[in-house]
């Protein structure tokens, strides 16, 4: 089996899984996770993401459906023999055991000699950079340190799939950055990982695949690029941080194949390329696809709208403008353009974007 074939074989297969647990219910979840995938499971709090992890780990019994690991059914297998490691959001470190003993805990079942155990603990501690903490007790660790200990402990059980429940929550920005580095390192070592989060930026910067859960259902699954650039519904779009998303009515042009007009309100309509047959839906205009000009410009852009800058603020390495043009558009510009063009609130500008840049989503 070569590398490609291995990657194409799902390590974890979830078929029509339904789980009901206290207030949470997951319905008909189907998902394949491939070897070496870093899957971010996205959803708002209470969407049922943690319940899905617990069901995969065998801590919650599914009402129906099947879970397969490397082709073998594990739906009803015992927790301790499933080969799926879970790092809880609260970490659940054993308070009465030292960091060393916490990490060594799963090694007892591996039949290792004490020398082998010692070197494995040191290797794992080195991987997550906590060698200096091995003699400490969990009660004395900071949030970031405890998170690393929990990761090392679960890795010691050598799981086929590593499940992480909100691993970056409750950490400050600096620690988040450091821990992202640790997670990438673990992923690069070949681990298949599922990471539950409600933060789409976290998902976009770490994951190779993204699955979005809404009200207990899986609404979209794909690469971060696919999901964020082509959200399947309004929830995914808003969740993924797309700002220029407007409900609209659709007018199709009989003569011009594929060209439609999205009427957002009495003052604003936008042309886009898309399939026929829709009467209403949503249009999305990625903020980086909008060109700002001081005057109407001759270009291939079909859409030209005049508006007034209402707000201008720093965003990441550039600036974001909110331009009122019948509806508020959010536009990304560089700091240099912002200074050169004096793009200050109150200034009138033109917004230019191609029909091809506009994405339509059926409601």
């Amino acid at each position, binding site marked *: 089996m070569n590398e490609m074939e291995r990657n194409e074989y799902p390590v974890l297969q979830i078929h029509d899984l339904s789980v009901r647990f206290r207030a949470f219910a997951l319905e008909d979840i189907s998902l394949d996770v491939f070897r070496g995938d870093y899957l971010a499971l996205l959803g708002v709090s209470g969407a049922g993401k943690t319940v899905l992890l617990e069901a995969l780990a065998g*801590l919650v019994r599914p009402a129906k459906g099947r879970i397969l690991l490397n082709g073998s059914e594990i739906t009803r297998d015992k927790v301790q023999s499933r080969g799926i490691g879970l790092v809880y959001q609260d970490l659940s470190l054993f308070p009465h055991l030292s960091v060393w003993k916490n990490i060594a805990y799963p090694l007892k079942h591996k039949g290792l000699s004490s020398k082998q155990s010692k070197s494995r603990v040191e290797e794992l501690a080195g991987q997550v950079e906590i060698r200096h903490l091995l003699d400490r007790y969990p009660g004395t660790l900071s949030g970031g340190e405890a998170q690393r200990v929990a990761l090392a402990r679960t890795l010691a059980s050598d799981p086929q799939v590593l499940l992480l429940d909100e691993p970056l929550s409750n950490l400050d920005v600096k620690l988040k950055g450091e821990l992202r580095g640790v997670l990438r390192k673990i992923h690069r070592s070949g681990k298949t990982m599922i990471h539950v989060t409600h933060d789409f930026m976290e998902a976009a910067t770490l994951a190779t695949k993204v699955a979005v859960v809404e009200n207990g259902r899986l609404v979209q699954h794909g690469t971060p690029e696919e999901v964020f650039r082509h959200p399947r519904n309004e929830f995914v779009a808003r969740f993924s941080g797309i700002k220029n998303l407007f409900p609209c009515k659709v007018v199709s042009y009989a003569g011009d194949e594929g060209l439609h007009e999205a009427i957002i309100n009495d003052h604003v309509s936008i042309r886009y390329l898309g399939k026929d047959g829709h009467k209403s839906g949503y249009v999305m205009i990625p903020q980086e696809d909008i060109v700002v000009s001081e005057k109407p410009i001759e270009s291939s852009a079909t859409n030209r709208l005049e508006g007034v800058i209402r707000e201008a603020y720093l965003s990441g390495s550039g600036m974001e403008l909110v331009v009122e043009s019948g509806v508020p558009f959010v536009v990304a510009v560089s700091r240099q353009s912002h200074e050169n063009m004096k793009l200050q609130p109150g200034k009138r500008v033109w917004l230019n974007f191609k029909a091809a840049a506009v994405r339509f989503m059926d409601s």
Partner: protein
Amino acid sequence: MRSIRLTLVSSLVGVIIFGILAIPLAYVLARRKFPGKGLVNGLVDLPVVIPHSAAGIALLGVISRNTWIGQAGEAAGIPFVGGMAGIVVAMAFVSIPYLINAARDGFEAVPEKLEKAALNLGASPWRVFFTISLPLAKRHVLTGLTMMWARGLSEFGAVVIIAYHPMVTPVLIWERFASFGLAYARPAAAVFVIICLVVFVLMRLLSGKPPASRHTEG
């Protein structure tokens, strides 16, 4: 002194033998849901709420020479009625609720997630019990064991019904008081109180600090 030794040893043997059964039962009561759990919890408390002489009579109905348990004991050379085995059973019967209740509270205080995490790390349920649940509930369990021992060795009502002889100290004190008066009963009572006091202070010290408050070591 012989009586005091008999009292201490009998109650200790009761704690050891019945403690081995009571601690897992306490864990089951803390963690599992099953039909009739309320009834079991009620039965656990029964020896505390009934008069101990009545408890002794009830026990006699189970371990007297007319019952198969009593006959099996006789056959094995460990007679219950009028023997140390009977004293052990009587002491354990009236004192076991203290251990079960304390241990159950201790196990309930252990976050279930820690046990789930241990299972997820590949540990068997037995290993989870001995390495996570029991050590974290240790303080409650030790308190329960101490209380059980204390309650057992001060037992009079149930023991006097099952075994007047050999004479445990509470029975001895009562017998001296009833037959010869206060002056005769006082020395035995004083010695017994002092020995009990020393034993329990030592036990409390051995129970140690709560494990969760342990800090950096090395």
